């Protein structure tokens, strides 16, 4: 099999990311003479350039359709393993922006000093490689491998600091990940057995003509695959690993998990649902809808009781995944990608703000934020804006309209009960974020938080605020990502 020009184009971005990963590792290992600051800066710049290349590529090819690694099928159109299409472009854009944001938030003096720079960026780029492949994958083997390429670096990153909490978090994530891969492979083997193909398009074709007994097997198999993904994106009831891992990891890694890792999982599930195993009217979509309802409710209710900022964000990110799963159950790619875009930008910002506070107040309690509106107005205003976007209320119109699109998708798919559950969760979610906002607005206690914020952090948080503000005024940008 020879690689065509289209094949090369379609894998250009993952390839460059992978090469960049190796380059970063080499630079860090073999350039010991330079100072830590210079090395860190060079590594950061190199990583950013690689990711920026990906973004430029996505922008240049946003309307293209590039099927790669294809072979002609017995019936139907050609089977392809990797497809770059507008949906892929949208997902890549979100993933790469997320990655770039994490790199920015891990700049010199921001990243904890005991985290090795070269390995960190190597793992980050490796995971991004996997994430981009995952979003373009159109056969189950590629999908599983790509998912593993995202996961393995992730828990290595959690354990980078080599302390007890980090190891515990990494261990949990690792065990869960292995288990979920096993479950997923089990489902895939059945799916292959039933349909005789690993290509999503062919599976989708053959699923329609199955006899009822096999269809039941196919349903079970599809459920296993979805459960595998549910572990990765921490959908309830497969979420138990997430809070401890988030708290145990260095905060930059937590940001990475919440932004890139989670988006990658959602992207994979979206590919699976829209192009393959869960066609319209399939019971698998109902299963995803139930997963969505349970996930958002449990996540938000648990978030309501947290007193630590990171734990609150961890649980509320579970709630947000529930909201992401809702349009996913309706296979509305536009709503999912739009939601992801808003979620990624504000989650980056929120974690960036939390990182600033936690560097100076390691306790990480919500009470540490008391009175910040007076003592640190800029940071407080930005954080409030991010939280309001997450809650989906004005002035956070980016969040409001992505929730709106999710509602629209669900209503159009005749899932009225899910819409009601979502309405309830809008209320619970608001309660979650209001607790935090209330702390920020209180008058300063005896010891208000006020520090010199590091310049890169200021830049990144301002950037996130600016992007979120633009998305709030012109929400159509988010929804144009996947069309």
């Amino acid at each position, binding site marked *: 099999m020879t690689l065509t020009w289209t094949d090369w184009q379609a894998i250009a971005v993952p390839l460059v990311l992978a090469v960049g990963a190796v380059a970063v590792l080499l630079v860090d290992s073999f350039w010991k003479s330079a100072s830590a600051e210079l090395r860190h800066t060079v590594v950061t710049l190199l990583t950013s350039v690689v990711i920026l290349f990906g973004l430029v590529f996505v922008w240049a090819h946003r309307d293209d359709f590039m099927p790669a690694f294809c072979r002609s099928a017995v019936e139907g159109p050609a089977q392809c393993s990797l497809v770059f299409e507008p949906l892929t472009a949208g997902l890549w854009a979100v993933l790469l922006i997320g990655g770039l944001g994490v790199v920015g938030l891990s700049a010199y003096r921001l990243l904890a000093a005991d985290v090795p720079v070269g390995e960190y960026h190597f793992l980050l780029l490796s995971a991004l490689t996997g994430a981009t492949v995952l979003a373009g994958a159109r056969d189950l083997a590629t999908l599983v491998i790509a998912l593993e390429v995202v996961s393995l670096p992730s828990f290595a990153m959690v354990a980078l600091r080599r302390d007890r909490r980090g190891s515990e978090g990494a261990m949990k994530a690792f065990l869960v990940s292995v288990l979920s891969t096993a479950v997923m492979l089990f489902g895939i083997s059945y799916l292959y057995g039933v349909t005789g193909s690993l290509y999503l398009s062919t599976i989708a074709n053959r699923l329609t003509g199955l006899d009822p007994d096999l269809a039941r097997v196919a349903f079970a198999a599809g459920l296993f695959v979805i459960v595998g993904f549910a572990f990765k994106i921490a959908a309830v009831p497969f979420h138990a690993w997430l809070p401890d891992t988030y708290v145990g990891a260095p905060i930059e890694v937590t940001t990475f998990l919440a932004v890139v890792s989670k988006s990658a999982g959602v992207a994979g599930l979206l590919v699976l649902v829209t192009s393959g195993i869960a066609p319209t009217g399939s019971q698998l979509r109902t299963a995803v809808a139930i997963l969505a309802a349970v996930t958002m409710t449990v996540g938000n209710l648990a978030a309501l009781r947290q007193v630590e900022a990171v734990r609150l964000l961890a649980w509320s990110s579970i709630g947000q995944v529930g909201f992401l799963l809702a349009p996913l159950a309706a296979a509305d790619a536009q709503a999912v990608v739009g939601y992801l875009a808003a979620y990624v930008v504000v989650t980056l910002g929120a974690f960036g703000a939390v990182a600033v506070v936690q560097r100076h107040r390691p306790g990480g309690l919500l009470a540490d934020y008391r009175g910040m509106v007076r003592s640190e107005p800029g940071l407080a205003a930005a954080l409030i804006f991010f939280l309001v976007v997450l809650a989906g209320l004005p002035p956070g119109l980016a969040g409001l309209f992505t929730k709106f699109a999710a509602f629209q998708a669900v209503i159009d798919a005749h899932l009225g009960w899910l819409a*009601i559950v979502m*309405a309830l969760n809008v*209320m619970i979610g608001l309660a979650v974020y209001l607790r935090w906002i209330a702390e920020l607005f209180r*008058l300063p206690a005896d010891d208000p938080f006020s520090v010199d914020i590091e310049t890169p952090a200021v830049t990144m948080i301002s950037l996130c605020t600016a992007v979120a503000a633009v998305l709030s005024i012109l929400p159509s940008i988010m*929804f144009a990502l996947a069309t």
Partner: protein
Amino acid sequence: MNAILLTILVLPLLAAGALWSVPAAIGDRLAAAYGSVISGLVLVGSVLLWPQHGGWFAYGPHDAPATEIDVPWIPSLGVRFHVGVDSISVPLIVLTALLTFLCCLYSLKITPRIGRTRSLIALLLVIETGVIGTFSALDLVLFFVCFEIVLIPMWLVIDIWGDHHDAAGRKRAANTFVLMTVFGSALMLLGFLLVQRVAGTFDIVELTSSPVAGGHGIPLAAALLIAVGLAVKVPLWPLHIWLPDAHAKAPTVGSVLLAGVLLKLGTYGMIRILVPVLPDATATIAPYLGAFSTVAIVAGSLACLAQTDVKRLIAYSSVGHMGFIGLGISTLSPAGLRGALFANIAHGLITGLLFFLAGAIKDRHDTSDLRAIGRALYARLPRIAALLTFACLASLGLPGLAGFWGEMLVLLGAYDPAPWLPRTTFLVFMVIAGLGTVLTAAYFLRLVRNLCQGDPAEHPPAAFAVDLSRIELITWAPLITLTVLLGVWPGLLLHQWSAL
């Protein structure tokens, strides 16, 4: 005219942003004056918008040069930035601008003890934008967005500047308010989405000229969701449970805006969206709406009889009055709708005044508990007591004052509801609502008796520095004047709505 509309929409928001960028020390000192100027400008602008011809968007010939801005906003979701005003919305916009202006003026001298005037004024201005936006939105989604703009600022106003004796209570009140309203508006949004699925558009003008037919199935579900969502805001019994606490704990300016303006968002939504867009489905639910409204009238009045807190009492009286408005809407008759629209304005003026007065009494006694305040206010605070009596009389519907016409028209509407509604049912409602007016008179007279009258010897005139301060007089004078003016000349407003 479009420029004026856009200005009064955007100016308060920009002004609030500018105010927040001023350092707190200077900002706190200048905020009230600054806010008065801005909201004064908005008031002037809103009066300039007053339509020359009565009319309703998409009802009747569209010949009048309507004030209307219509540009696409989010094409992929079918959302447009479509705002405009007609004779339904302008009076409410003027009311909003007036009450905000008066609140800013009031804050020149009298502010909650905690201070932070800069943020308070800025939030009031944001609320003003949200409310005016809701009253002028002609796109369902824009309506929803503006409806939500108000929530967080109001939550902050109650949570930060509320009753300083009861931190836990005001927090709970603020949270109950914001969470119930958010849930209601999420349900309303579901209703809007159902409407869009059937009709294919969010545009209120289009939907009004070609409404969604059918009184069952999806239109009925949509109407129910929208009605419930708006009923939380109105608030209609039994969804009113957030209201007494929110009003009782809010600072004076918060209560005034909450009762005077925010409650109207719900009834306005019913008149603007529910009735014209889903006429058949609304006819199906109208008797139930009427029934709940009637219960609200009676339940609100009975609750008032049992209150010992003056702010809670006025809050519950709002439940009763809003019940009248709901009943008027549910009759679907011209008289009923006109009555509801009139009562909207009248209630805004009178209850605004009542809350100002309650705030004044509360500030002077440092409590709003009737038993702690004691009796014989006529002797101790003669002018304030006289004004309170005036406001109570206006509120209970004394002929010759603004409160009378709305309720009379509503009862008239219930006597002769739209022909497709069950007349007997509405006659029963009318009778019960009539009894409700008696109850209203009873509790207001009880309030006057328990608070104002009594032997001055038992409650010696405490050493209050001022009875009625100048700023209070200036702030309240417009409300008093308008209450009398609308009472003797209801046609001023009613002729606007002759085309209904």
